[in-house]
């Protein structure tokens, strides 16, 4: 299949496809980060994670409409505010859900999966009732359109670069919060020994609520980023949930580094394959490879050997 292209062509193809893959990678990482925090730290399978992402996307869409209508002079900067609002909206909904639903199910991980699936159905229908069934697209400010010309045959879109930078920043922030801050230590303490953490004065319920909220909030930001690469509809989130779960599991659930590495390898494989075959076959092959590797190495890419 490489025969028809010259070496130079192939190089450009790989760079361009690689870059296209990097945008997918960004959305995967942002989605997976939230999911990994919730799954890895709390053991909860959040099937409604895609809907939290889509909430962020809708918030971004609404913010852009508001700016267009009332503050057109500031439109170029709306995106930053939209991201913050997306984070807050998804995070707040996440905390509400944790309080109303998740906290009753901590001892039954398989049941959280079913309950959050029910939640995702309700959210989808809510979006459909509020925003309509049609997909909506967000208008980007002028400076994000256009692309950077790296060489004669290689061009990269500016919004892609922006999303990637954003992803890197958020990842660093999450790593800082989880591994450096006092709150992160509390989260990890609760993960390792809930009863003991409670006994030494950590408010485990509060830690759970904020952890879940943080995971959902990051999904909201992922939704903001998502608006740049796709249009938003009530069921758009569902398309990503299985992929993202595979990213988390493939990376080894509790490892932040593993999540990033696995998001990178999955998105790059898919995007590179997409150039040579239909999108659906590329996806089939990528998912098959991931499932195949998981069957051989169920603990994921990065996992410590620990006493069970």
């Amino acid at each position, binding site marked *: 299949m490489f025969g028809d292209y010259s070496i130079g062509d192939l190089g450009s193809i790989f760079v361009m496809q690689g870059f296209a893959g990097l945008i997918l990678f960004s959305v995967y990482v942002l989605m997976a980060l939230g999911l990994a925090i919730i799954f890895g730290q709390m053991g909860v399978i959040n099937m409604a994670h895609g809907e939290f992402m889509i909430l962020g996307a809708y918030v971004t869409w609404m913010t852009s409409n508001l700016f267009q209508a009332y503050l057109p002079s500031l439109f170029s900067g709306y995106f930053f505010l939209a991201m913050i609002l997306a984070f807050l909206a998804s995070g707040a909904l996440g905390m509400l859900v944790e309080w109303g639903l998740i906290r009753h199910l901590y001892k039954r991980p398989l049941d959280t999966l079913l309950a959050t699936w029910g939640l995702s159905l309700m959210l989808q229908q809510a979006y459909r009732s509020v925003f309509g069934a049609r997909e909506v697209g967000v208008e980007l400010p002028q400076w994000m359109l256009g692309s950077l010309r790296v060489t004669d045959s290689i061009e990269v879109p500016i919004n892609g670069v922006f999303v990637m930078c954003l992803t890197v920043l958020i990842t660093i922030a999450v790593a800082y919060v989880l591994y450096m801050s006092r709150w992160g230590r509390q989260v990890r303490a609760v993960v390792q020994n809930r009863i003991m953490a409670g006994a030494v004065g950590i408010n485990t319920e509060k830690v759970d609520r904020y952890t879940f909220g943080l995971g959902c909030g990051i999904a909201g930001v992922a939704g903001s980023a998502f608006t740049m690469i796709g249009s938003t509809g009530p069921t758009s989130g569902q398309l990503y949930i299985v992929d993202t779960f595979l990213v988390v599991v493939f990376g080894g659930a509790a490892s932040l580094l593993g999540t990033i590495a696995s998001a990178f390898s999955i998105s790059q494989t898919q995007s590179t394959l997409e150039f040579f075959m239909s999108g659906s076959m590329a996806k089939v092959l990528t998912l098959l490879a991931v499932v195949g590797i998981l069957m051989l190495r169920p603990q994921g890419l990065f996992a410590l*050997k620990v006493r*069970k």
Partner: protein
Amino acid sequence: MLIGHQPKDFLLAVSGLTVSFDGFKAVNDLSFYVEENEIRVIIGPNGAGKTTVLDLICGKTKATSGSIQFRGKELTKMKENEIVQTGVGRKFQTPSVFEDLTVFENLEISFPRGRTVFGSLTFQRDQSVKDRVEEVAEMIFLKDKLNTYADELSHGQKQWLEIGMLLIQDPDLLMLDEPVAGMSVSERAKTAELLNRIIKNRSVLVIEHDMKFVEDIAHKVTVLHQGQILSEGTMEKVKNDPKVIEVYLGH
């Protein structure tokens, strides 16, 4: 030294056993031997690796290196259920019984017949099964509770039930992890009586903290410390070993 002398056949021969968890050696180059019909008690401070040793023998944890020979068979290469089938039974520290099943059903599942998928589909609850279940139930003081669901039993009764589940397997080597922990005084006495009865005709490997209990039953004591053997021998010898005294009385 004699010509033709054969090395003595041990029931269980552990040699050079090591396991490391992410660099930490929980058991380090451990060797010990258990004879037929011997009651061996393993003692040692918390974190000495006692439970890990039992985990290694019964296959719950895989050894990093070393060998465990049971009747000449290498256990480190076998799966848990195969190890059970060669005659090693294991009781866990916290009672693990099937709470949604009755005492009878708990014991029946442990009855060593019909252990394959097909075998369990065609398994018949015949007279020999019933007799054996009743016999064991009587030994573990649960004869009148055969139709009780296990979740209705007291902590001590669950411990007995689990011991009964091992008995019905009739293992050659019985491994018990703190069999009297969490029991009331009267339950303890009854358990000691039970253990004294069931340790006939088999070897037993016990982890226990209750020194009175250890003195009562042990033929030989192995003291573990930081994954290695600190001292080994009769209770009397071990008790007077200065190294043991130092570890137990603090540094």
